[in-house]
């Protein structure tokens, strides 16, 4: 990426980076903790929200109650799935930007010799 990085060869990078040491570092651990705290709850949420639709339509009929005119709740719930996807997408991108910064910081601090962030 930068000229400084290009001066280092792959072999050197292999020798200088101890991945176990990086993995054990407080900086990396807290980074992973932040990531987990974000990804796991959101993933559980969208999977439950998604499977709620076929489960409710298969085992109950209350979603067939009309809401406005001939549009029933099931269509509203179906459309809510689309809105949920777009909202979560946007939230993820915002959050990922802060993860990028943390990741770059880790590369800068722990793997200063050789290598590039890509």
């Amino acid at each position: 990426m930068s000229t400084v990085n290009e001066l280092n060869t792959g072999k050197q990078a292999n020798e200088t980076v101890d991945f176990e040491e990086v993995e054990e570092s407080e900086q990396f651990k807290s980074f992973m903790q932040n990531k987990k705290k974000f990804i796991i709850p959101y993933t559980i949420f969208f999977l439950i929200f998604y499977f709620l639709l076929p489960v409710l339509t298969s085992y109950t009929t209350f979603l067939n109650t009309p809401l406005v005119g001939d549009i029933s709740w099931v269509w509203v719930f179906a459309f809510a799935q689309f809105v949920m996807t777009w909202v979560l997408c946007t939230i993820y991108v915002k959050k990922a930007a802060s993860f990028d910064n943390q990741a770059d910081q880790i590369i800068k601090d722990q793997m200063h010799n050789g290598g590039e962030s890509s």
Partner: protein
Amino acid sequence: MSPTVIILFLIIVSLTLVITYWASKRTQTTGDFYTAGGGLTGFQNGLAISGDYLSAASFLGIAGSIALFGFDGFFYSIGFLIAYLVVLFLVAEPLRNLGKYTIADMINARFDAKKVRGAAALSTITISIFYMIAQLVGAGALIQLLFDIPYSGAVLIVGVMMTIYVLFGGMIATSWVQIVKAVLLMAGMVVISFLVLLHFNFNIGAMFSEVKTATSHGADYLSPGLKYTDSLGTISLMLALVLGTAGLPHILMRFFTVKDAKTARSSVVTATWIIGIFYVLTLFLGFGAAIFVGESTITEANPGGNMAAPLLAEAIGGEFLFAFISAVAFATILAVVAGLVLSGASAFAHDLYGQIIKKGKASDQQQMLAARYAALAVSVLSIVLSLFAQYLNVAFLVSLAFCIAASANLPVILYTVYWKRFNTAGAVTAMLSGLFSALILVSMSPSVFSPVEGAALFVGDPIFPLTNPALVSVPIGFLGGYLGTIFSKESDVKRYAEVKVKANTGYRETGS
């Protein structure tokens, strides 16, 4: 057939051939051939992902399903879209950070074993071929109807076209054909939806009221349960749809056509918006077809409802719109099969030939030649299989591909990135148990055995009740990987540390 249809077809086909010619001048290395040299921008790649994903099954199939079955047709749209959250949250970035050309590369970042690479290549090739047969069978039926030529001739035309794109243009041509097609397809969808809504003065409630009386189903049309009456079957299908995408090789391969994980992420976001809008519009197409074309005309043209969208275009937009939509549908099929050929060919040439047979010592030129031969072989094989598969249900083939992807590829991808103890034995057992349980369960399912003669391949009672076995085969894939791992003592903590750090930070050694 009218001259307008022929002229529009020729224009769109020549446009794609010009792209291929231009791309062939740019395809010099294997990197260009497999991944367009990793040089696409996030937005371009997002369009190409949409182009890859919005296959004939989405465009023709879902519009037809909604037209015939109302809400139940919409289930597919929802499942296909939410699948992108699984891709974005769990798979896209680690995959881009670890891999080079194929899924096997990514798994090999952790395990060097040839058997792991071989198993990954096997599942990639199986999924690609099933998916491709589905597209080719659908394409054959469409071209047969439009041009009034025999099915075998129609399959051959599509087959030869896709082979040309891939052979000469590689990933660069395939990507640009996808991009052009995604733009044309969205334009067509927006125009048709606009015309449908115009009829109701943009009052969606009025459209719902109209469709309620337009079909033979009456008010039931607007409620779930017309098509999917089996509760566990519905849930199993939804499971295959939401998890399958994150294991589909031709979609995952798209993350290697950009320069880094950030661009991969932004391309998933672009794709999610485009695909989401597309699937919202399928609703207007389906309802529009039910109202303006009518059930009997739709099923007369094709019992599966596959002609609903083109017929609607004709009913509300006249011959020109019909010609445009048909030509776009043709381009859609070509673009998708080209992407599939490429992912199958890369598994053959890069994984089996380059890494296993030549032990990674093949020169760039040898690999490129092998990739082109492999593309040819994959094309010929799927054309021949499609000629025999004329009467197979297209939706069954597509859902089978999704099911294999979810059962064989997804467990191993997740374990590789997220599970410390995971090892070589586990990777092999995860892929093989997922792959074979999906295949075996489908071969015993109602899609293959039916007591009614002619309804399925064989006459007889199905041994396994679910049409789509994902509810059973996905857990088997995960369980297979778990058991394979704990029964083998091998474990490489040091290597996992490297994979974990690289997958999460995007760190790469220079020169590698």
